[in-house]
């Protein structure tokens, strides 16, 4: 079974690879060409087939793309973080049961993806990785960036988190405890970054605008507002 599966995949990937290098396309055995050579064409051909067979609804594909390109992204997580910063009761609920607390925004359902929120403090720094694949809290951060899914980040985050953070420009002091969360199951982690100093006067909405994706993965801190930019 494994051999058959691998042969099939090899053919699929070989065809995909051939599309990246036009010269190999011409010498490639036609029998392995499972769909047209260009990845864009191959994908288009599969989509047409699935639509024709009634397996997918093209409007649903459009809606899914639109949702992840425009509606679900780090702004969701930023609103959760800002609420936790201004509302101590919300923060307690968020740390005790992230699903229920995030469900208040409608980003997850109470019975849906299992969320866990990890609080960063001056003494404890949490960061998230998925060494085995690319698990990431889509509901609050959207789809992961390429670096998160890449071999350098996945391989080194667990063995050298401080070195990795240094590459992101974050140099932690030796007395800070680093906790790396390897997402090996269906728990989805979100880091609650520290609220920067000098933001006491900001509204929840202004605070949310400061919160970055990277800070919620735990590879950056939230910077204070730039002087003169916010009121």
């Amino acid at each position, binding site marked *: 079974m494994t051999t058959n599966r691998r042969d*099939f995949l090899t053919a699929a990937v070989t065809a995909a690879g051939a599309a990246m290098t036009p010269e190999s396309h011409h010498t490639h055995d036609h029998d392995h060409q499972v769909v047209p050579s260009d*990845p864009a064409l191959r994908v288009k051909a599969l989509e047409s087939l699935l639509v*024709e067979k009634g397996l997918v609804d093209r409007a649903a594909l459009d809606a*899914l793309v639109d949702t992840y390109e425009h509606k679900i992204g780090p702004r969701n997580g930023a609103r959760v973080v800002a609420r936790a910063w201004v509302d101590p009761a919300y923060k307690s609920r968020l740390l005790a049961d992230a699903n229920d607390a995030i469900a208040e925004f409608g980003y997850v359902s109470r019975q849906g993806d299992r969320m866990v929120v990890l609080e960063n403090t001056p003494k404890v720094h949490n960061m998230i990785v998925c060494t085995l694949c690319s698990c990431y809290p*889509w509901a609050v951060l959207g789809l992961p960036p390429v670096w998160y899914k890449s071999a350098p980040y996945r391989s080194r985050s667990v063995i050298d988190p401080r070195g990795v953070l240094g590459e992101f420009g974050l140099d932690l002091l030796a007395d800070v405890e680093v906790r790396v969360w390897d997402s090996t199951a269906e728990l989805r982690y979100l880091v609650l970054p520290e609220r920067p100093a000098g933001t006491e006067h900001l509204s929840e909405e202004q605070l949310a605008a400061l919160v970055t994706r990277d800070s919620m993965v735990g590879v950056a801190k939230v910077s204070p507002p730039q002087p003169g930019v916010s009121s």
Partner: protein
Amino acid sequence: MNGIHDMGGMQDMGPIQYEKGEPVFHAQWESRVFAMFAATGAWRKWNLDAFRHTREVLPPDDYLRVSYYQQWFSGLLNLLVRRGLVTAAEIESGAPAPGTAKATPPLTPDKIPAALPNRIHAHRDVQVSPRFQAGQRVRARNINPVGHTRLPRYARGKFGMVDRNHGVFVFPDTNAHFLGEKPQHVYSVRFAARELWGQQASQKDSVYLDMWDDYLDPA
């Protein structure tokens, strides 16, 4: 499977390549692969564990060489054929086999807002006794299955402490191969960085892994 995907702790993979202002998708075909995977998943012919395993069985050199959504595309083709939604001949010809009845797509645009927050479907509300309690010392089993597992090599045989119990979830090692859900408790287990990596690691640091009952022994 002790494959290239299990890369936690490897070194010399190069610097992290950070792209400022990165788009959600780098090409339109990537977005269509993503959407097709999500939409065909609504047929419930496979699960996320099975999908992950399709990427793991890519030849290692391909795994490292091809882009993320090329891996997805391969996995999608694999599952569509293996789980009987599409035939290999149909993929080659690009057209439905003659005489095939047209199906009705389970995922329509109106269902998307409600479907997304329940995406993963791995938690189970069933009564299973936990084998471990928070605060208990445990040891990750030294297992080397040839199929799918979510117990990374770098943690096998290592001692840790149960941090918290997350409830009952399907077991990937069987679920990925359609051999049953085998629901069991999942825990966050804390491993001291020095237990995993030796004295070169900071004494203060740790790595938390999510572990199923079947990955652990009392210690």
